[in-house]
C-alpha cells in the first residue's frame, strides 16, 4: 500500500496528542497514511487552512464547526466534526491580584466547587471581571458563561476577551484580563511563571464537555471516504493508547519536543496524569479524568453535544435557530464515526444523541457489542439539557 500524505493543522496543546501520537507511534503508518502535522499560530489560521484547502484535517475547538454552520464569524465553509479528540482538559485561573484577595477572605482553592469559587470571586471583585479565552467560539467561553449565569457572578456578569494563550501571562500582567480559561499546558505555564493560580478545572462546570474535534471539510469527507476512515482509525487508536497510564511518560516526552509543544514534559504530565499544581505555593490537586481521550466513548461526536453548543451560541448571538437545530447538529458526524470505526473492535453507542447532563454514574448503554458504559456528564447546577425545556 502506497503511503498517502495528509496535511493536518493543529495548535500546540496537550489535547493535540491523539494527532501527534497517531503519527509518532505508527498508528497512521499502519493505516497507510502519514500525517504532515502543521503547527498553527492561531485558531483562525487553523480554520482558514482547513476551509481553504491548505490542509485536509484539523485539531479544532468543538464550537467552531457548529458556529460556522450557523453562519457566525467570517468563514462559513461546511465542516464535519468526524470524531471528538478530547473531552475536558481546560482550567480556569486567576491573576496574582485576585489570588491574593481570594486568599485574604479565606477561599480554600479546593479546585472543585464552582459555586463557592464564584461566590468568593463576586465578594472580592471591585468592578468588571474580565476573563481571557483563546477564541470567541470555544468551550472555554461556553463554560465561563454557563458558570457565571448560574452563580453569584451572574448578577454583575463577566466580560470575556480573546487572548492568545502564549500572551495570557503578559495580558494578566498588563491588566487586560483579571482571570482566564485556557487549555493545558497554558494554565500550568502561568502557574510556573508565577503570574496566576488555578481556581477550577473545566469539568467542575460540565463533567463531560467535548473540547476538541477532528474536523475535515464536508465535501472532502464525501469525496475521500477511505482516507477519512483511515485517519479516524489512526487517531482513535492513538487516543486509546493515550488512555493507558503506562503510555503517559512516553507521550509527555514526545509532546514536549521543540517540534510540538516545546514546554517541559513535567508540565505536560500534570494534565495527562490529572495532578495539577495550583499556584506558586505548590498545592497539588488530583482531578479524575482531567482530560479524556478514549473512555466512555469519548471520541463519539454526539449530536446532542452539537445541539447544546448551538443552543448556547444562538442565545449569545441573538439567532433564532429553532427550525434549523437538527440540521446544524449534523456537523457532529455520529453517522461517519459509527460507520468508519466499526472495524476497530471498539464498542460504539447505538444512539446518536443522549440527554446531556443526565448521567450521574457510569452507565451501561445499548451498543454494538453490549460492553459500553458512558461516564457522568453532569452540569454543576444539576440541570439537564432537554430541548423541550427552555435551557
Amino acid at each position: 500500500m502506497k503511503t498517502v500524505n495528509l496535511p493536518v493543522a493543529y495548535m500546540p496543546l496537550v489535547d493535540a496528542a491523539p494527532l501527534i501520537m497517531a503519527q509518532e507511534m505508527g498508528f497512521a503508518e499502519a493505516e497507510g497514511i502519514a500525517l504532515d502535522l502543521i503547527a498553527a499560530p492561531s485558531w483562525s489560521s487553523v480554520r482558514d487552512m482547513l476551509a481553504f484547502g491548505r490542509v485536509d484535517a484539523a485539531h479544532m475547538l468543538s464550537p467552531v464547526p457548529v458556529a460556522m454552520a450557523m453562519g457566525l464569524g467570517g468563514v462559513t465553509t461546511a465542516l464535519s466534526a468526524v470524531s471528538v479528540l478530547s473531552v475536558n482538559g481546560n482550567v480556569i485561573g486567576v491573576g496574582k491580584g485576585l489570588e491574593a484577595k481570594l486568599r485574604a477572605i479565606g477561599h480554600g482553592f479546593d479546585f472543585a466547587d464552582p459555586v463557592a469559587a464564584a461566590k468568593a470571586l463576586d465578594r472580592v471583585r471591585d468592578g468588571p471581571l474580565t476573563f481571557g479565552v483563546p477564541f470567541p467560539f470555544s468551550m472555554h467561553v461556553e463554560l465561563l458563561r454557563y458558570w457565571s449565569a448560574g452563580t453569584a457572578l451572574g448578577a454583575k456578569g463577566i466580560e470575556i476577551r480573546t487572548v492568545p494563550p502564549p500572551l495570557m501571562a503578559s495580558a494578566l500582567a498588563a491588566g487586560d484580563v483579571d482571570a482566564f480559561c485556557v487549555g493545558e499546558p497554558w494554565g500550568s505555564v502561568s502557574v510556573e511563571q508565577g503570574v496566576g493560580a488555578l481556581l477550577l478545572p473545566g469539568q467542575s462546570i460540565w463533567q463531560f464537555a467535548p473540547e476538541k474535534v477532528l474536523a475535515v471539510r464536508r465535501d472532502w469527507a464525501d469525496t475521500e471516504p477511505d482516507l477519512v476512515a483511515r485517519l479516524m482509525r489512526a487517531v482513535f487508536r492513538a487516543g486509546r493508547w493515550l488512555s493507558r497510564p503506562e503510555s503517559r511518560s512516553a507521550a509527555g516526552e514526545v509532546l514536549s519536543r521543540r517540534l510540538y509543544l516545546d514546554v517541559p514534559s513535567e508540565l505536560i504530565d500534570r494534565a495527562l496524569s490529572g495532578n495539577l499544581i495550583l499556584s506558586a505555593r505548590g498545592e497539588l490537586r488530583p482531578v479524575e479524568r482531567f482530560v479524556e481521550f478514549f473512555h466512555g466513548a469519548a471520541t463519539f461526536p454526539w449530536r446532542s453535544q452539537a445541539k447544546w453548543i448551538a443552543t448556547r451560541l444562538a442565545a449569545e448571538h441573538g439567532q433564532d435557530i429553532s427550525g434549523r437545530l437538527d440540521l446544524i447538529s449534523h456537523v457532529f458526524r455520529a453517522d461517519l464515526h459509527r460507520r468508519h470505526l466499526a472495524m476497530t473492535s471498539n464498542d460504539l453507542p447505538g444512539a446518536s444523541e443522549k440527554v446531556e447532563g443526565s448521567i450521574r454514574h457510569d452507565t451501561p448503554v445499548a451498543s454494538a457489542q453490549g460492553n459500553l458504559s458512558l461516564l457522568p456528564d453532569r452540569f454543576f447546577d444539576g440541570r439537564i439539557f432537554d430541548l423541550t425545556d427552555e435551557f
Partner: protein
Amino acid sequence: MPSGMSAKLTVVVVEEDRDRAIGIIDALTANGDCDVHVIGHASGLARKIAAHSPDIVLIDIDNPTRDMMEELTLASGPLDRPVAMFVSGAAGGLAQAAVEAGVSAYVVDGLSPKRLKPVMDTAIARFGMVRQMRNELAETRRALEERKVIDRAKGLLMKARGIDEDAAYALLRKSAMDNGRRVADVAEALVTASGLLG
C-alpha cells in the same frame, strides 16, 4: 460611519515590526486612496482598532494576535459596523491569493469590490514578498544547521573509526540510503546517541 465613494479608505495594519510596517504603509499610500494606521502592540487590540473605525484591517496570517481580531467579526464586537473576514467573501481568487501570500483582511460589510481590490492587490504583493524572504531565510538557516550537524557526525565517525572525512561522509550517506532517510537525519541521530553514551 461608512465611507462614501469619494472618501479615502481607512486602513489599519497590525504589525509589530516597524520596518515592515513602514514598507506596507508606503506601498498602500502610493495608491493615493487610503489613510493607513499601524498598530504595533497587541494589548487592547480590538479597542485600538475600533478607535480608527477602519474600512479594512490587515494582519499577517502568522500573527498569533489574529485570534483577537475575530471578535471584530461578531455583531456584538467593538466595531459598530459589521465586519466580515474577507477571505470568506465572494472575491474568489483574491481570497485564495491572500491566504497564500500570508495576509488576512477584515473588511467592513458592504465595501465595494471595486474599492477593495486595489488595496488588496497591493497588500498581497507586499505580504507575499515578505513571506518569501522569511521562507528563504528559514531555509538558509536550516541548511546551515544541517551542515553543522553533519560536520559533527563526520567528526565523531572519523575519531571512532579512524577514517578520513570523505570516508565518514560516504558512510553517513550509505546509512541514509539503506534506511531511506536523509543524511541530516542520520547525522542528528548519531550526534544525539553519542551525547547519550557520553
